[in-house]
């Protein structure tokens, strides 16, 4: 087997995160052209292109129950957390330094740590300078939407063609359980009234952006018991209004984070709940499943953070020739785009072949979830070394990427974070719902514990392309008669 020769560096370890689902399938050619090198918007692009966030926007105009404005932790990886705040000038310098060092870097986003549009002077000064100095970088912004309508003109002027709005609800009664207050017209407004204003502004902003031809992605945080069923309606509505992608992310809530949800015992969704909701919404719109919920100052490919290489004192010492860097970047981009195009054409061809096959009776064998310890698209990681497992659903009609499960602890483990569960127990817990785990190697202890948990370890496909290996294992299970009944052991956590 020949590993795909991609000019990628690190980040997501999948070969292709959505082969049979075809996340880009429902998009027009125009949108496809716009997102083909955006790692957050295009599933296959995230293997080739990197993103960075600059933390220039500290202020926020609302409070969300999953956010703690005090948080500033070097070990944490989740939205809203940063290590150092940058001025617009520092952010521009950092962006140029990163773009010159990492040719994959195609997108600069402002995502916080507060709300970018609650810091319009800092956010737009950063965009203004970058549009001039780094015309080869796409600019995007994410927002809670409260100040969005008044910013749409200026966003269009700075050539921002991607905006993400976090929309957790369209019903103020649901919103009142998520947002305790907003700052609006020089007043703090609480409860249902606050939620109603926020929702109206989000929807108005969405409509205005779509009317301007600016691409809108909608992020939603799945909060069990609060907005889980409701998000299906959200998905329908935002699609009808022209959002092109919906990203449902799991709530992150731990008491140690000091958030309302963390302290009040609101639980996070289980992976199977997240998948079920994404599947339910997928009928209506393009769903995004490769989001890694990165920090507001993340740098690099999705799933990696190279922020440490670009601290203020380090970029101060760097001598950047951006003209020269742009030549290198253009060459990288041309090569990557050619490879991506070839891959996409191959996929299209494959799907056409499928389409012309005569319809047969419903194929035998139920779908199976398998977790893979992958590296660069191959079954190449040792079970104990994997920081994340990619989860695939295998069925008669092919293999589909459905998400990833992190196994590293959210915090590196000082006395204020982490819990008594061992790393192995945590890993097994994280793989709930999967019936097989493929890896290059695995020790005897984890093998035994996985089997006891109803998950079959498999080390027979080391270095093979992930999707081929998953399909082979599924066919073996089918041949062994394991796929005509519901599994009893591999229950969801």
């Amino acid at each position: 087997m020949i590993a795909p020769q991609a000019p990628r560096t690190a980040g997501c370890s999948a070969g292709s995160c959505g082969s049979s689902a075809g996340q880009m399938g429902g998009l027009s050619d125009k949108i496809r052209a716009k997102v083909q090198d955006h790692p957050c918007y295009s599933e296959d692009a995230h293997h080739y292109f990197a993103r960075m966030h600059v933390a220039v926007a500290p202020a926020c105009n609302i409070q969300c129950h999953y956010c703690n404005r005090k948080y500033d932790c070097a070990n944490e990886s989740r939205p809203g957390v940063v290590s150092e705040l940058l001025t617009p000038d520092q952010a521009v310098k950092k962006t140029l330094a990163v773009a010159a060092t990492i040719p994959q870097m195609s997108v600069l986003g402002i995502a916080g740590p507060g709300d970018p549009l609650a810091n319009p002077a800092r956010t737009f000064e950063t965009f203004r300078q970058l549009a001039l100095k780094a015309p080869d970088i796409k600019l995007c912004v994410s927002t809670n939407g409260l100040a969005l309508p008044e910013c749409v003109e200026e966003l269009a002027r700075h050539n921002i063609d991607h905006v993400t709005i976090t929309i957790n609800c369209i019903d103020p009664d649901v919103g009142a359980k998520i947002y305790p207050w907003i700052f609006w017209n020089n007043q703090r407004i609480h409860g249902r009234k606050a939620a109603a204003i926020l929702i109206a502004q989000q929807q108005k902003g969405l409509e205005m952006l779509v009317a301007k031809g600016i691409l809108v992605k909608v992020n939603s945080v799945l909060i069990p018991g609060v907005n889980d069923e409701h998000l299906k309606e959200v998905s329908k509505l935002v699609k009808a209004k022209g959002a092109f992608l919906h990203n449902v992310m799991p709530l992150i809530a731990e008491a140690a984070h000091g958030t309302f949800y963390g302290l009040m015992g609101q639980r996070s969704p289980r992976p199977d709940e997240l998948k079920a909701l994404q599947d339910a919404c997928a009928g209506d719109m393009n769903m995004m499943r490769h989001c890694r919920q990165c920090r507001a100052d993340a740098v690099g490919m999705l799933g990696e953070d190279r922020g440490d290489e670009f601290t203020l004192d380090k970029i101060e010492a760097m001598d950047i020739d951006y003209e020269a860097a742009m030549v290198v970047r253009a060459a990288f981009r041309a090569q990557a785009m050619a490879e991506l195009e070839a891959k996409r054409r191959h996929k299209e061809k494959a799907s056409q072949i499928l389409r012309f096959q005569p319809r047969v009776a419903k194929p035998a064998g139920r779908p199976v979830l398998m977790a893979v310890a992958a590296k660069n698209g191959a079954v190449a990681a040792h079970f104990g070394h994997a920081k994340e497992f990619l989860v695939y659903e295998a069925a008669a009609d092919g293999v589909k990427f459905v998400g990833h499960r992190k196994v590293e602890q959210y915090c590196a483990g000082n006395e204020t974070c982490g819990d008594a569960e061992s790393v192995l127990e945590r890993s097994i817990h994280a793989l709930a719902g999967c019936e097989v785990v493929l890896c290059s190697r695995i020790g005897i202890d984890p093998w035994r514990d996985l089997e006891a948990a109803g998950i079959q370890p498999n080390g027979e496909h080391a270095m093979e392309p992930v999707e081929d290996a998953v399909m082979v294992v599924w066919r073996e299970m089918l041949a062994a008669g394991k796929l005509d009944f519901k599994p009893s052991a591999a229950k969801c956590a």
Partner: protein
Amino acid sequence: MALEIIESCVSCHACLALCPSQAIIETRPHFLIDAGKCSGCLGDFADAQCAAICPIEGAILDEFGVAMNPPGSLTGIPPARRAAAQAEIAAR
């Protein structure tokens, strides 16, 4: 009449642009209020703007030294609940 920002301020900048008297001082380790400039927004706004947007309970005091956003008022987290969680985490 002057308000005061104390050490629990996280320097989030939210108050900076809102102050009608330009009384907020952007400094380290946290922002401060210039008592000579602060009017408590009297005559400008119904509510003191810094206190109306500040996300941190207890970070802004009124002229009597009383927290304008007392514990629990912004996050909805009962103070006893927060204290219990902190004690539990510290005991791990």
